[in-house]
């Protein structure tokens, strides 16, 4: 497994920091990028914006918050699924909301999974562990060519 990469999309700095702390412990040798809103996430995935001239990215898994300024999590999902390169990228929604409506919409827009951010830190930590174990370790990702095979 080469070039394993996690993209964390989270606007709240406390949440982002706690998640980064946990993820770094869980997956110490994996590159983790954190962006603070949807626009930044899409720029990162498409290689736009600052710093200029970046390559488009295909993360091993995207951890996506829903409630964000500018473009929210649903917007990010929707646009990703419209991009040939990101059509099959695994996106796990990490949200404080356990509203049926939000869960259903996320899956309809192509989310690979939905995890409610638990208020207890230990359970939050173990849920992230489980996400990474599954999507980053056990789960076989789609072949790289598949990302671009359709326009």
């Amino acid at each position, binding site marked *: 497994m080469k070039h394993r990469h996690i993209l964390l999309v989270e606007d*709240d700095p*406390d*949440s982002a920091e*706690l998640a980064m*702390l946990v993820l770094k412990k869980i997956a110490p040798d994996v590159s983790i990028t954190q962006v603070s809103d949807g626009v930044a996430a899409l720029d990162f995935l498409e290689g736009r914006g600052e710093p200029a001239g970046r390559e488009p990215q295909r993360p091993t898994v995207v951890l996506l918050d829903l*409630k964000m300024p500018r473009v929210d999590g649903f917007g990010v999902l929707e646009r990703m699924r419209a991009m040939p390169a990101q059509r099959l990228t695994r996106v796990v929604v990490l*949200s*404080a*909301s*356990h*509203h*049926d409506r939000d869960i259903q919409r996320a899956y309809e827009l192509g989310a690979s999974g939905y995890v409610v*951010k*638990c*208020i*207890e*830190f*230990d359970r*939050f930590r173990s849920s992230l562990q489980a996400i990474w174990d599954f999507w980053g370790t056990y789960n076989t990702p789609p072949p790289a060519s598949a990302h671009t095979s359709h326009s």
Partner: protein
Amino acid sequence: MKPKPPIPTAAAALRRHAEGRLRAQQRNQKSAVPGQRLAADAKRTLHELQVHQIELEMQNTELQEARDRLDAQLEKYTDLYDFAPAGYFSLDKKGVIQEVNLTGAALLGVERSRLINGRFARFVTPASQPDFLAFLKRVFVETGQEVCDLAMVKEDDAAMWARLRGTVAVSAGDSRKWCRVSVADITAFQHADEARARLVAIVESSDDAIIGKDLHGIITSWNRAAERLFGYTEAEAVGQPVTMLIPADLRMEETRILEIIRRGEAVSHYETTRRRKDGTPVEVSLTVSPVKNARGEIVGASKIARDITERKRSVAELQRVSVLLDTLLHTAPIGFCFLDRDLRFVRINARLAQINGFSVEAHLGRHVSEIVPALVDSLGDVTGRILATGEAVLNHEFSGETPAAPGWMRTWSESWYPVRDNAGEVLGFGGIVEEVTARKQAEEQIHRLNAELDQRVVERTAALGLEIAAHREAEERVGQLNGQFTARVAELADTNAELESFSYTVSHDLRAPLRHVLGFVRLLAEGAEGKLDADTAQYLPRIADAATRMGQLIDALLDFSRLGRAGLHQTEVRLDALIEERRAHLQPDLEGRAIEWKIGPLPVVQADPAMLRQVLANLIENAVKFTRAQPAAIIEITCESGPTEHVVHIRDNGAGFDPRYADKLFGVFQRLHSVKDFEGTGIGLATSRRIIHRHGGRIWAESQPGQGADFYFSLPKNGQITAITP
């Protein structure tokens, strides 16, 4: 009459007689004769003269005698002619009467003198005229005797059948031709012939078999009806013994019948059985009479046999019909009677007799006034109308009392009609009587009720007018309320949307800081492990507990608020399975607990499974929680199913509660025990109540402190869902 030789042919005999007589004279006068020769000649001449004289004398005598004889004969023939039993007529060619004897004149009833030179045809009827003319013609043209029968009319206009026998005669002088006719009155024979012919015709055309037989029982005559009745033709029957018609076992009858006949007596209408040619029996009525000859001797019998098979059948049929009619009449469920013209009962059936209150027999011959005096007048009117018009009077209503039910006014519907004989004469009146008292009373009742009803309708219509006005007002009010309601619903929808937005914000925004606090406290505890003194170190888990608890409260509150909005998805839910699942879920918390579960038979209910699970989880967790202090905890879960609902009962022997606060139990954040004693958010029962209400059920609790608690909830059987409960 002595035969005498005719005179001319007896000349020789006459001479012999004369000579004989002369010789006798000469013997007496011998002495008086002189001389022989001369005397002989003279004597001879004298003798001749004497003989001749005697001959002449004798001839004269004989002539006289002949004339006498002729006169006598003429008289005799005239008598014969005139008094012959037949009329004799001499007619010329034109039919004019030339001669007629007295009988002939008497036959026509006319004096002979008036007939002579009259026309015979005058007495011939016009119908017989051609026959008469033809007869005359034949007589004159032909030589033989001609016969013809003529219908004639006598002078006195009496009719007569006459038989004419005619021959032609030629008169000696002028050789004219005559017709000599004998006329015989054959009227009597003609009548006898006609009578015989009629008798034969009667016998032949008779419907009854008429058989003649002799005294030995041999058939001598046989008519057509006999042929029809017995099947033998005349040729087959005549000459045969009559016993061939008698069945073997009845042969003795014939012997007896013949005995009676021989005594000169008759057998009348003797009913017996006879046998046909084909052997089948036939019922007959016999009348046998002796037949006598001209001398009055009995020579045989005439037997008249009448086929009575049909009559017997008819009589039987008539009796049957009569019995049927009687039965029909007597068992009819409607009254029937026949009154004569004087209004006396001739016939009456059982029903009418019963109506009148007398036996059938008691009616017969009695006048109407004796039986139902109250009805006499109106019945008299009706029968009077029938006699006047000849028409029936139908469905006429009679009212009155009867001896059968004194003091009780009864009503009948009666139809009366004239009963006539064959000549059309009214013999009496037929009546059909139906008691309609009950119907009449019912009609009057209905009439009364109708009147009352009409009155009530009038009253009610007035009242309705007022009600309608009131109703209109109410409708207007309802319309207003509906408007208000619609507005309120819209407001509620807005409120709901706001609430949703609020709870989303709460869930996201309130929980995030708590999560962060908990996260960092945890990291702090891990990082500071061994660097803090014991007192300080124990603050960190207390911060974490407080934050955790706050998170739980927020979650519970969100769950509760979400309940009002979530859709209710009812299916069939097995209560026992759901309870088993909750118990399994609790198992880790039951370590070291001694709990006796008493779970009764539980039904399948209509409910939203996720919501019902939450209720049961809550109630069971409560029971487990509040029996924690009990060394021998007992939790009973039973269900009682009524006609409309299931009532689930969860009983524990735990801490219980003060019944004064039973109502508060189901309020949000209501706690009857301190968190220190029994942890919990204080929102579980409120949630349960909300769920049960949404299912259309009820939830309640009963308890005494330290006596355990009884929680009940009901679920409607038909799965009714009530509106949103705030």
